[in-house]
């Protein structure tokens, strides 16, 4: 498979997962850089060019709230999950678990072929 084609498929696969991971991580307040670090520490690398616009988009959709505040003598924009973000995340997680279980069953059945 051409690397471009793989990249496109990988990107598509990651897109939804990233939204969910970001929402879940923002149950606790973060600013962009620490959010990226925490996600990376847990094994999910996300580049800044994706993360920052994603945060803006989720905020404009009302799933996140943000405020500018000073920390360590620097002004930072802190994000956290909004009440509607909380309920959306809950529904997404239910969906995720069911997809995950289904894909596991399907992939598990063909594992010997792979």
């Amino acid at each position, binding site marked *: 498979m051409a690397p471009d084609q793989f990249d496109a498929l990988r990107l598509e696969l990651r897109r939804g997962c990233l939204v969910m991971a970001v929402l879940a991580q923002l149950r606790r307040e973060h*600013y*962009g*850089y620490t959010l990226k670090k925490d996600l990376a520490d847990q094994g999910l690398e996300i*580049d*800044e*060019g*994706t993360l*920052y*616009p994603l945060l*803006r*988009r989720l905020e404009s959709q009302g799933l996140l709230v943000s405020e500018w505040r000073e920390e360590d003598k*620097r*002004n*930072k*924009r802190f994000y956290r999950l909004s009440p509607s973000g909380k309920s959306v995340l809950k529904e997404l997680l239910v969906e995720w678990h069911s997809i995950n279980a289904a894909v596991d069953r399907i992939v598990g059945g063909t594992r010997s072929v792979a």
Partner: protein
Amino acid sequence: MDLIDSYVQSVRLFLPSEQRDDIARELQEDLRSQVEDQQTELGRSLTASEQAALLRQYGHPMLMAARYRRGRNLIGPVIFPIYWQVMKLILGILTATNLASIGLLVVRGGSLPEVGNAVTRFLDNGLEAAVFITLVAALCEWSLSRFKVLERWDPASMQSFARPLRTAERAAHHAVREAGRTDSLVRRALDNAVPPLQVRSVSEFVMLSVFTAWSVLGLTFPTLIFANAASMLDWAPAVDRMFPVIVVVAILALVDQYVRLMRPAAPWLRVSRIVWANAGWVFIVLLAVADHRWVMWIGTPEQWARYGELAVFAGRTWSLVDIVNVVITAILMIVAVFSVIGPCWRLRRAFSRRGAHTAHA
């Protein structure tokens, strides 16, 4: 100004205006936090190449800014900011020339159907220009992504933005001390101060492409320039004779800009800058000695009766042709003067930016 500041400023240029300051500020703060973090870890400040490595993860400023734009499908988000600038510029010029010609028609007692025709032609022209610009923009967008121009971006190419300012400042101070030799020294300082900044080159290249195509088309199809008055005015033979030269110069300018875009560090760019600056002087001299007859009358006697004697000024009668010739001379003069003083203005701006940065630090 270091690489981080240059980067944030470049991204800022392409951000949606309503969120511009907020996003740029957030980007700046988070980049600084990241730099500080790495510096604490290393126990020293980051080198330029380490900063460049950091910025490479963020991607080309145009790509970074484009990710903040959503839901524009006709023209992709990367080209959109430039596309919109060009659109406003060209439609603005078209509107100005058309309104002037319609206004003239009304003042000289044009009938209702005549005015109606002029307005319709104005709308047609506007629509054609908009379609044309959109096609060019779509082509630019396609080629940028097809040839992965922005993905091959090297943050270090912005470095020249920070470094030569000191050299330029020193050179300029020296020039001031050595009054009388200002000209060549300032020019040398300018050469150091105007960096081959890739981001600016992208938008300059697109703007110049569209503008060149539009003016070359305008020489072939006078309606684009003269609007409603194209039934009475045509380019004078002298302009027609100059046409090949104009096309060659336009193509040279485009090639020059293209090299700036693809290889910002190419050594002959310094030479080309000097050539262009001097071409401005040649242009001024040529303008001064030209006979200033750019357009000629091709209208009917009835039209002459209406537009032949528009005004009496400075002891003579001015026809439409005379007035258009004066306006074109004035515009060319302004362009020529700006092409020469442009670099001076850039130097001044570079200084004030540097001053602001020093005050901030």
